[in-house]
């Protein structure tokens, strides 16, 4: 426990976390500090490419085993299953209508790739290895939650606007394509490929992540300010309870599959995190009546900071404690 606290404190005073806090603070102070949209997108492309490539190169170095397939299956099951838990939990904790509950549930079944990236950088910092193919698991977990949430809604008598065009869009979503593509490139070109571009995708990685989190702090802070009042205490409680619940379930899967401590920590992070890029866009199409001020604020304003600051160090600590790092 003591050790976890000290790790959390350590985590707290990293440039990454503090950059996020700076962004939050600037937004609350109504500063006009802002990162241009194009630069934010450019950084996200960089991060997706780098994390995907490194994952693929890792797989090339260590070889593929059946755990990869099991992990992918686990990820898909989790992404389908977690929205059900979220949907039920929301009924207990909030008075949202089914549409908003379904929309929120979709977010929590899916994943946040930046939370994943932040977790890998914490693992790197502690020298804990993890399976490179976890980025593929991350990609696999992006979409199923949307289907699951729409099914939950239809079971409750609701109706989304989802059509085949939407499913096509979700599957060919830019971030999935880039992540998987970079993973494959990393896998094909391997360590040699990584060596060619490591001074681009490895060396400056942490620094870019700082600026990206600065931007996310700004966006999250502005969102929180705008939507004050739309979230009740119950919703906030959901945003804080759902991550550890998801993480615990993710851990069970990791143990069953036999992931390393690092891999288990990442599986926990994926299960605990909530989408804020792909799913919100899909929800605008599929469930236009659902309120962004609810699902975006919960995902980006409550759960993301929670995972970043408190969740990740706990998940890592728990995984290493149980599996041994």
């Amino acid at each position, binding site marked *: 426990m003591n050790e976890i606290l000290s790790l959390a404190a350590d985590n707290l005073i990293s440039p990454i976390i503090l950059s996020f806090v700076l962004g939050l603070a600037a937004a609350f102070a109504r500063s006009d500090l802002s*990162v*241009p*949209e194009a630069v*934010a997108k450019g950084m*996200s492309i960089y991060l997706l490419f780098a994390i995907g490539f490194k994952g693929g190169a890792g797989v090339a170095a260590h070889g593929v085993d059946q755990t990869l397939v099991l992990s992918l299956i686990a990820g898909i099951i989790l992404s389908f299953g977690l929205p059900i838990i979220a949907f039920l939990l929301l009924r207990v904790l909030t008075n949202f209508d089914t549409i908003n509950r379904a929309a929120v549930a979709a977010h929590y079944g899916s994943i946040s790739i930046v939370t994943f990236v932040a977790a890998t950088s914490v693992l790197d910092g502690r020298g804990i290895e993890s399976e490179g193919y976890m980025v593929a698991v991350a990609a696999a977990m992006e979409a199923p939650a949307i289907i699951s949430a729409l099914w939950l809604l239809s079971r409750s008598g609701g109706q989304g606007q989802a059509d085949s065009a939407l499913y096509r869009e979700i599957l060919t979503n830019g971030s999935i394509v880039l992540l998987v593509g970079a993973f494959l490139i990393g896998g094909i070109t391997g360590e040699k490929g990584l060596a060619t571009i490591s001074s681009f995708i490895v060396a400056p990685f942490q620094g870019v992540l700082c600026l990206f989190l600065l931007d*996310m702090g700004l966006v999250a802070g502005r969102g929180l300010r*705008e939507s004050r009042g739309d979230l009740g205490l119950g919703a906030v409680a959901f945003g804080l309870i759902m991550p550890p619940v998801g993480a615990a379930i993710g851990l069970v899967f990791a143990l069953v599959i036999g992931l390393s401590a690092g891999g288990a920590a990442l599986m926990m992070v994926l299960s605990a995190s909530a989408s804020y890029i792909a799913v919100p*866009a899909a*929800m605008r199409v599929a469930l236009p009546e659902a309120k962004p001020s609810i699902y975006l604020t919960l995902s980006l304003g409550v759960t993301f900071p929670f995972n970043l600051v408190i969740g990740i160090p706990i998940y890592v600590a728990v995984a290493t404690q149980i599996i041994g790092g």
Partner: protein
Amino acid sequence: MQTHDAKRVEIIIEAPLERRLTDALRAADVTGYTVLPVLGGSGASGTWSREGQVSRASGMVSVVCLIRPDRLDTLLDAAFTVVEKHIGVVSICDAQVLRAERF
């Protein structure tokens, strides 16, 4: 200079719906339009801004369409199928255009 009557239709719509709108327009044989970026705005559902955003979810675009007056209703019907269920603002102005053969 010789000008011709036309309608200028401006559809401000959520960015994730852009492709659906332009598909609907083309399906209705409206092949001329121009898409302009939008920085931010305010409406019944609050204030938003594109700054620092990665996702297209919270953002809009403005689709401007110059069209012959007799084709207006076709356009509006097509646009309405998309805009109806979603956030979107549709406005029409009377306009004049040069080179009517283009429309």
